[in-house]
């Protein structure tokens, strides 16, 4: 077995509070050593391993996306475990929490087994299945959480659909305590959001597209926080999109409620202005909100209210997207554009580097209970090497995802992954 040496890069590892020039030695799929640059006794590794020159580049723990849709099983025409994980590593992600709304939904061990088996054979990145909260994602009765945990799920979520029944949500938060796994909640009061397709505000008033009020999210965040407080269960709020939602989470954390939250790169970047030309690629749920919301999300990220940036990578084909706006499915792909969009917040000085990287590595690892997300001696060697100055243009024909539904097509980006390493193996670059 040979070594892999990553030499001379700027290592940013929030878990160990490290930011400086380091050499990293990888052996047998794990981090063997992290040494100050130049400390390595030169000839030790020569001829025995591969050296990656990372001078002028940033080295970070492989990013962990705790919210994406790989579409397999069931909708392989949109994405597969193979194409989704390939897109992931091209975007610097080494682990993915795959949402449960596949066909069939992941509400029992056999589906979880299928995903894990498929991932172990074809996956370029680590795939971490998420189980549903309720059987058939119908919101009526709890899944066998113990069986799913044993099969390997890392969280429970009916994402894509809200658990409207408050009693069911209460019991889910309660019962899951036994397994110390989080409930990831898609917060949407579907009576309030109704037939809405975009954010309710000026753009919906002008376009005549039906709006979903911010309150369809915030009332459910409020409910779920109350239930987490009641039960002591672990609540993780998926894709927060509203200013008031951020405020509710901030207050809950101050009170000591066991709640964490994530935000997507697109909600940090775009507002509902993006749908004015009826671009279905910009149709997502929760919808792109107003500028005040976007500001509040960035502030929430900065002050730690929001723990994680997660892509909500949601591939759709032309069948779902090349139709009228009303009829189009919600969701956009995000794995390959996430890092650049996140870095733009850094370049605009809205967040510091270490705080940004922790939202992509350390924090999702902590919430999902993974021994990853850091380049610590003995940890699995999941690594992304980034050229922070590389400029590129989003060309959907060159993306690895099977789908092309992104409103960022044609955007000029700065910062790009040059190499991705999963479990000690170079899988990209």
């Amino acid at each position: 077995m040979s070594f892999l040496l990553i030499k001379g890069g700027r290592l940013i590892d929030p878990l160990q509070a490290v930011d400086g020039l380091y050499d990293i030695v990888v052996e047998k799929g794990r981090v063997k050593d992290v040494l100050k640059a130049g400390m390595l006794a030169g000839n030790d590794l020569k001829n025995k391993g591969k050296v990656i020159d990372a001078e002028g580049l940033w080295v970070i723990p492989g990013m962990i996306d705790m919210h994406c849709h790989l579409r397999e099983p069931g909708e392989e025409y949109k994405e597969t475990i193979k194409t989704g994980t390939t897109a992931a590593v091209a975007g610097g992600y080494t682990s993915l929490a795959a949402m449960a709304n596949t066909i069939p939904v992941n509400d029992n061990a056999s589906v979880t087994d299928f995903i894990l088996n498929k991932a172990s054979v074809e996956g370029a990145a680590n795939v971490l299945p998420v189980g549903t909260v309720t059987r058939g994602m119908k919101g009526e009765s709890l899944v066998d959480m113990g069986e799913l945990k044993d099969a390997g799920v890392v969280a429970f979520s009916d994402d894509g659909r809200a658990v409207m029944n408050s009693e069911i949500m209460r019991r889910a938060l309660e019962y899951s305590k036994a397994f110390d796994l989080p409930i990831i909640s898609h917060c949407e009061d579907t009576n309030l959001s109704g037939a809405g397709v975009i954010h309710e505000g000026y753009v919906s008033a002008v376009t005549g597209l039906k709006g979903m009020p911010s309150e369809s999210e915030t009332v459910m965040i409020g409910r779920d926080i109350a239930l987490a407080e009641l039960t002591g269960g672990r609540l993780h709020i998926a894709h927060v999109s509203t200013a008031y939602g951020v405020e509710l989470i901030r207050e809950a954390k101050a009170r000591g409620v066991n709640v964490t939250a994530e935000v997507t790169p697109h909600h940090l970047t775009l507002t509902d202005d993006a749908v004015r030309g009826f671009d279905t690629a910009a149709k997502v749920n929760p919808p792109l909100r107003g500028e005040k919301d976007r500001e509040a999300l960035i502030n929430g990220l900065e002050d730690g209210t929001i723990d994680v940036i997660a892509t909500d990578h949601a591939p759709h084909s032309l069948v779902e997207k090349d139709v009228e706006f009303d009829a189009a499915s919600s969701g956009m792909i995000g794995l390959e554009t996430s890092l650049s969009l996140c870095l733009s917040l850094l370049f605009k000085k809205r967040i510091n580097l270490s705080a940004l990287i922790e939202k992509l590595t350390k924090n999702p690892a902590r919430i999902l209970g993974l021994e990853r997300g850091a380049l610590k001696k003995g940890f699995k060697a999941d690594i992304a090497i980034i050229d922070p100055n590389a400029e590129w243009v989003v060309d959907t024909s060159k993306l690895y995802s099977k789908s092309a539904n992104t409103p960022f097509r044609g955007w000029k980006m700065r910062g790009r992954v040059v190499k991705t390493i999963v479990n000690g193996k170079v899988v990209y670059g």
Partner: protein
Amino acid sequence: MIDNAIKRKDLLGMDDLTVDEIEAVLETAEKLKEVSQRDIKKVPTLRGKTIINLFFEPSTRTRTSFELAAKRMSADAINISASASSVVKGETLIDTAMNLEAMNPDAVVIRHPSPGAPHIISRLLKSSVVNAGDGAHEHPTQALLDLMTVKEKKKRLSGLQVVIVGDITHSRVARSNIIGFKKSGAKVRVVGAPTLIPYGIENMGVQVSYDLKESIKDADVIMMLRIQRERQEGALLPSLREYSIRYGLDMEKLEDAPKDVIILHPGPLNRGVEISPEVADSPYSLILNQVSNGLAVRMAIFYHLLGGKE
């Protein structure tokens, strides 16, 4: 001197039109009204042109108006009624558009329940696309005919107080008229039950009122919108009876309005709901002028859009 050119392929919404373009259309429409008063109600201008009316929503009057407008300009008009539900499975809007394109029409007039549907089609077609109503978004020819009707009567648009009454949230007529009247320098107020007025509408530069009687005291123009009977579902309205009492225009409420006020309604009327029969048939009402001006406006749109192509 008006720059008389409409420098675009499509008419998708009032939002796209410049003030000069609006005036050019109105001026042309005024001239074209004369054609419909002749014994031989036809000019050869658009001979050999093909216009397809693609309607995904039932509509008699708008479709007829477009069809007649095409025929009076000597274009060949074909009507296609399609079901919007077919987009869920089977032929998509885009398939339909590509099929039409293969027939090489010069213009496609489209009505569709989904906002933005004409915009999707226009990106695919070489021919001109005319929006005849897309969901609650826009209905530009309706706004143009309303502007024409008001201008004919009031001799100006600038400075007028226009009051639009009814279900603003679900009305493409309201949206296109707000944009059209604002661009022409008029003041616009929207009036209705709070559940039927969208948040953010103030940013379009309109005043909002929930009191009909109060809001028409200084009105030069009152535009009554059709109320859909289904609005009662989904808690938007308690009952049509209550709506009619609060927001229906009758002679008693009209007493407080200026004596030279004019009343418009895009039709079809719900007599006794949003407008009383006495008001609808009163001298204030220009509802039938709207219909004849609609024809002239649509002829003008065809005239402007279908020139300039070989």
